[in-house]
């Protein structure tokens, strides 16, 4: 008997198994293969994966009591599978979103036409914590402000995929997306024989090309700016720098001279820097402009950026579009700049600064999720159905004191994926998905992204610091189920206009072939 017969999807949408206990079509191979393994064999694979993570040194840092502890990256071996046909729609939606968001940010720091036209209330933007008046009037290369974005997607009970938020400041996680694939290749090589899984390894090449395109030089000096070894994402900073062949530097490694240029301090003297991929928040970037007490940044960096002598990715001030209150206006923003309807859904959001919506929120607070407008990482969120009466009263007071700072959304029933539990049985666990979007001369979306999973039964918290883990994410092409793109087509042979440039058997491509196609 198939183990899936006993797998209870509990009225949630499961990514792999339908409510009848049958695999969804894209997951058939994976589900069948998992079913062929005994409980012991499955547990062995999980252990092999964990060993690989340890040996490869894939870690994240938990910072407590002034000491950073490296923990092995928590990983579950069952992949999350998404059909390519569905993914292509999401990809188009994400590209649309980022295009609109970049036009929006550029408008906000120039003419503010969207505010003048009354589409988005001026108050909302000009009083946002992440609006940087210092950036007004700065012309950035390609008019792009948010070059790297990590958007969080969730799937609701009816199967609809929503964008939950766009992280435009310093999103992390992409290195784990690549390492997860490497671990899966080591522990389940046979699964890749029977599935056409779109590759994710090209990200560092795409990232480097995008960063280099921000300079007019043919061989610009690119630097990854990290807050240092105690940052929880330091592993990723080092990983990306290494993969791109860029220099990993801290603020104290750089100086801005009287010529308003940025230099690295090297053993051979000062070396000019052209592009900085910064992984430090705006506030700490430059003590001359932002927080005076910052020791992480580079004094004069913003001066050099404004003079056009160095490109910063993401640009200072890009976080203004990261605000949850701005999120609520995203459909209008897309409509305004592109005259299009959103292709990937926004979670319906109540804006508490609008009196009639505020009234609704306060009346239905017990069934809504309340979110502060400009916090990230899950801080300050109140989940109505799970909150106590006291917590709800406190939340209501906070909202009434400062309505602009809050939005409310219906509670979503996050989808699940089979995950190995403590007893080595497969049980449904809630997941989200973070694809990464690069915006330069064109917009690139990773094939899938980082799937985060709440390892505790019933939990919705996917953060690795709070008991969350991750899974490899597979975008699977299936020849028998033609989607919007033709069978056998991978993103390697589709150009940015969605036109197929070469049809090849994807799983026969070697890495070298991949690269030569990119160059052609």
């Amino acid at each position: 008997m198939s183990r899936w017969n006993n797998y209870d999807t509990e009225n949630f949408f499961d990514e792999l198994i339908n409510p009848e206990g049958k695999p969804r079509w894209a997951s058939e191979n994976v589900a069948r293969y998992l079913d062929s393994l005994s409980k012991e064999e499955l547990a062995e694979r999980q252990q092999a994966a964990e060993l690989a993570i340890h040996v490869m040194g894939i870690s994240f840092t938990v910072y407590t009591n002034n000491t950073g502890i490296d923990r092995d990256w928590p990983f579950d071996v069952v992949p999350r599978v998404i059909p390519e046909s569905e993914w292509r729609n999401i990809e188009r939606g994400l590209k649309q979103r980022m295009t609109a968001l970049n036009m929006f940010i550029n408008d906000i720091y120039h003419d503010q036409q969207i505010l003048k036209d009354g589409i988005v209330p001026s108050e909302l933007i000009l009083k946002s914590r992440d609006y940087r008046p210092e950036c007004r009037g700065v012309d950035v290369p390609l008019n792009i402000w948010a070059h790297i974005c990590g958007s969080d997607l969730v799937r609701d009970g009816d199967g609809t995929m929503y964008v939950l938020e766009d992280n435009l400041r310093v999103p992390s996680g992409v290195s784990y997306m690549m390492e997860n694939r490497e671990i899966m290749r080591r522990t389940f090589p046979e699964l890749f024989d029977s599935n056409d899984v779109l590759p994710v390894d090209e990200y560092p090449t795409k990232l480097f090309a995008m960063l280099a395109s921000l300079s007019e030089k043919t061989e610009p000096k690119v630097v990854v700016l990290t807050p240092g070894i105690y940052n929880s994402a330091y592993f990723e900073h080092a990983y990306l720098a290494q993969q791109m062949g860029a220099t990993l530097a801290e603020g104290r490694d750089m100086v801005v001279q009287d010529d308003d240029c940025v230099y690295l301090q090297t053993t051979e003297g000062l070396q000019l820097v052209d592009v900085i991929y910064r992984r430090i928040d705006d506030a700490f970037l430059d003590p001359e402009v932002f927080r005076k007490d910052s020791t992480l940044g580079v004094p004069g960096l913003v001066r050099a950026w404004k003079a056009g002598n160095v490109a910063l990715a993401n640009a200072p001030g890009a976080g203004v579009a990261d605000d949850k209150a701005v999120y609520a206006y995203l459909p209008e923003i897309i409509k305004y700049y592109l005259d299009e309807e959103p292709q990937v859904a926004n979670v319906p959001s109540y804006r508490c600064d609008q009196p009639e919506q505020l009234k609704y929120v306060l009346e239905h607070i017990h069934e809504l999720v309340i979110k502060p407008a400009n916090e990230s990482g899950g801080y300050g969120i109140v989940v109505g159905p799970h909150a106590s009466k006291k917590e709800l009263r406190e939340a209501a007071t906070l909202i009434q004191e400062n309505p602009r700072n809050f939005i409310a959304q219906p509670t979503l029933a996050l989808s699940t994926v089979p995950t190995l539990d403590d007893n080595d049985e497969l049980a449904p666990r809630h997941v989200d998905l973070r694809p990464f979007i690069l915006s330069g001369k064109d917009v690139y979306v990773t094939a899938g992204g980082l799937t985060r999973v709440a390892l505790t039964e019933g939990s919705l918290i996917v953060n690795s610091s709070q008991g969350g883990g991750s899974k490899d994410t597979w975008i699977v092409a299936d020849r028998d189920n033609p989607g919007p793109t033709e069978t056998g087509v991978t993103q390697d042979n589709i150009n940015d206009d969605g036109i197929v440039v070469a049809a090849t058997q994807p799983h026969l491509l070697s890495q070298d072939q991949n690269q030569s196609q990119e160059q052609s």
Partner: protein
Amino acid sequence: MLSRIAENLYWLGRYIERAENTARLFNVQANLMLDLPKPYRFAWQSLVDITGGNEVFGEHYDEANAINVQTFLLTDMKHASSIASSLHSARENLRASRDGMPKEAWEEFNEFHQMTTKRLTAGMPSRTRFNVLNDIITGCQQFLGLIAGTMDRNEGYYFLRLGRNMERVDMTARIIDVRSANLLKKTEEDLTPYDSIQWMSVLKSLSGYQSYRSHTRGPVVGREVLRFLVQNPEFPRSIQQCVDVVEVTLSKLPNHKTTLEAVTPLRELIDTAPVRTLADDSDRLHSFIDEVEQALINLHSAVANSWFSVNH
């Protein structure tokens, strides 16, 4: 390469060598004590003096007895040169520069660090102490072997090698200094048999007994041991040999003219060392070691000025 990373790797080399040699230093002293007749087992304080930790020691301990000095030199995190502190600092420097190092280096060192910390903090009765210290020496050697076998011969490698060899000069000098502090007065004729035992102990602590034997046909006597440890061009822990390596290493680094010149005073000291006199006069030996230390400090300043970050 980045000045900060160069500095990290230089200090990584120094701290690993320091941990290893503090283990050697402690072993030689502990063995000397066992060899001496009871009334002369007084010299724990000298070990504190030699490692330059007098002030810190005075703040935290009443008496320089075996237990206190052991804690101070091996496990005390308040003492910046204790083995535990050195390994911790080495790890922090490695962590900050790990993206330029072979992947295995971090794994290997991390495991070594975890294991050693566990054993050091578990408490060490004297019967297990020798083994623990010996494993620390072996662990440091293994790590450096891994680096030698896997790391590109790039600037980073040379900064690490520079730090390691400068520290080795420093520590060999200090280990000789332990001997000077324990040198017995000539008038006590009945103690002369112990003289050669003690020098042998110094050689063994530097894994140099075998090498000494192959270079010197005669017995183990002070002036020959000193000549060997200061001037032998082949023994890898002799001051002469380390300074040779320092010179070769410096010449691999960019813009090395001024730093290379800063080696000259150190070289002159070694070449002209009056080993015969020094072997018999503990005060002169001690001041000779002081001069070597000062020359090293000057060399370090030259290195820092040439290549390290100016911001801090």
